């Protein structure tokens, strides 16, 4: 599903943030990318989703058999790349439901499916809410406006469920959540695991991985993947902290 080879990237001020990333994620797999602050985790997510402000200087990204990098952010989204934001953005005056319906219909049109009318959309929303066991209290509010941290993350997971991406990137989705919210969000992520879907979880802490069990864990440090392993790697990191990277980093 996702094939990253020797990816180098820099930001506007010329600093190189990614220094040769190799990563391969197959459909049905969940990979976790861990690492200390400033290691390049969010940059990687941003580049994959097409966030402006980065320049890829070397390497390639193949998604679903095609070159991902020339596509604009909205084209990537319609092709099935979803980014759950670390800091979901507020859009005042825009109803959360209308926003989601516009987005869903844009994606559906791209897939050659007909638009959902208001009734059909509402039905799909209800079904998804039930499946994810989340309440409907956010739907009639402005997009992320006045949402608590937990509500914002819950909304991201709900959007992901509605848009049914092939590649889901979750950027620090666990940050700033209390234990109940973490459980709710993790539960949502687990329900969205599917043989057709690849997921990349980006996280600073190991605690999300208590709830969502990844197939592979990679440790990113100073723009490179310095360690990869199975889920036991998380426990190791928990015990020794990122200091254990020592020489490897």
């Amino acid at each position: 599903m996702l094939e990253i080879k020797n990816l180098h990237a820099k930001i506007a001020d010329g600093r190189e943030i990614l220094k040769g990333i190799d990563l391969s994620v197959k459909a049905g797999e969940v990979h976790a990318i861990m690492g200390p602050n400033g290691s390049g985790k969010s940059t990687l997510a941003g580049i994959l989703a097409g966030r402006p402000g980065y320049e890829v200087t070397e390497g390639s990204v193949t998604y679903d058999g095609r070159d991902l990098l020339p596509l604009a952010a909205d084209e990537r989204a319609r092709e099935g790349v979803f980014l759950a934001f670390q800091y979901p953005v507020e859009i005042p005056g825009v109803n959360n439901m209308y926003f989601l319906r516009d987005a869903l219909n844009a994606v559906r049109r791209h897939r050659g499916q007909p638009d959902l009318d208001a009734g059909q959309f509402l039905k799909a929303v209800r079904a998804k809410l039930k499946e994810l066991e989340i309440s409907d209290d956010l739907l009639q509010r402005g997009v992320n406006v006045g949402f608590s941290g937990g509500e914002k993350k819950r909304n991201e997971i709900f959007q992901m469920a509605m848009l049914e991406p092939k590649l889901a990137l979750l950027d620090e989705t666990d940050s700033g959540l209390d234990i109940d919210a973490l459980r709710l969000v993790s539960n949502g992520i687990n329900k969205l695991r599917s043989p057709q879907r690849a997921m990349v979880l980006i996280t600073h802490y190991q605690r999300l991985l208590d709830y969502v069990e990844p197939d592979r864990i990679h440790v990113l440090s100073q723009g490179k993947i310095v360690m990869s392993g199975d889920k036991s790697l998380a426990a190791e990191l928990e015990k020794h902290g990122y200091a254990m990277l020592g020489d490897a980093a």
Partner: protein
Amino acid sequence: MTSPDDSLETVRAVTSETYKYGFVTDIESDSAPPGLDEDTVRFISAKKGEPQWLLDWRLQAFRHWQKMEGPQWAKLRIAPIDYQAASYYSAPKNDSGPKSLDEVDPELLKTYEKLGIPLSERAALAGVAVDAVFDSVSVATTFKAKLGELGIIFCSFGEAVREHPDLVRKYLGSVVPQGDNFFAALNSAVFSDGSFVYVPPGLRCPMELSTYFRINAAKSGQFERTLIICDKGSYVSYLEGCTAPMRDENQLHAAVVELIALEDAEIKYSTVQNWYPGDAEGRGGIYNFVTKRGACRGDRAKISWTQVETGSAITWKYPSCILEGDNSVGEFYSVAITNNLQQADTGTKMIHLGRNTSSTIISKGISAGRGQNTYRGLVRVQPKAQNARNYTQCDSLLIGDRCGAHTVPYIEVRNPSARVEHEATTSKISDDQMFYCQQRGLSKEDALSLIVNGFCREVLKELPMEFAVEAQKLLAVSLEGSVG
């Protein structure tokens, strides 16, 4: 009310007939020589067959105007206007304007397509000289018959002067006096035509009245004069303009609108102004200098202005309310967009005279390109306006880094019991907002349109339903090309 489709059908039907009412056909061969003096005013009045009192009224206005100078206080850069170079009475000429749609700015045609303007209307809106002009006067006459049965008068200003001289004489200039300001004085001297509405006591006008069905030729809009009177306990909702960008070779527009609401009456006046803004370099484009004012003459009267201003190279416009009656209410809801090199200086005046009067001002200014957008508003509470209330909210949205937004509130309170609130914000469409929308699958254009419509939501919801849907599309079209 008939659906818009029906109306268009009717329009199509009537445009194939030649126009057979009124004075329009008479004037086709006439026009006044360029220049403006008392003789020009006499010429216009004579051409329209006006009574002596109205000629005198025009002359009085003209004498005021001669002693006045154009306002310099607005934050607008305006090239000097030579008032003697223009012709103040010109019939539509078939050899001016573009000959066919091929000669019209292709950008304008694209816009028509995006707004879904029927092919049959595009030529007329673009100012192409065609034989079957989109002639809605005839449509208005069918509505007029229905309204007439109820006692509601809705007709051209010229017709009102002939048929209802007492009403016109009583109210004309009673809200905007001839010498009120430079442009109002000019309008009073040389106004071409306009609309007249009178709703009798206790009656709720059953349909939205619209100038869309009234403007007969594209070129009659230059010096429009509108007078709307709602008698005791009556209600009317009036729509002005249309969402299609109207091309007009008259660069200077100076309209006057007067509203009068008597006891317990309510007037809702909605405008979508989309005159040609000029091209991306600022060439061409209308100068729009409008004086709009309403008087709540009776207790518990209410006047509500809603405007969506997207067109014109220059907009100078302050729809205002004079709250004379006790417990009367004034409202102003505005969206103003400036893109490319457009300039807008717009806002309102709320003058509190009566007790317990209240006013609300919601202004949303959007600047893109190199556009300059100024909110200028006055809230004045006079000594006798016990317990007056005002709430003002001015929000500005910037798109890009070459545009400007300015807020100039004037607050004058002469009664200690008044409560006046003013809130203002300025924000920028952030890259994060755009990226968030795009990451969910929306194109750049759709993302911008969504964010801007969200910003304007409080104002757009005040528009009548049909108008609101069109206005949303219009906002998107107006901002095209403003994000890289």
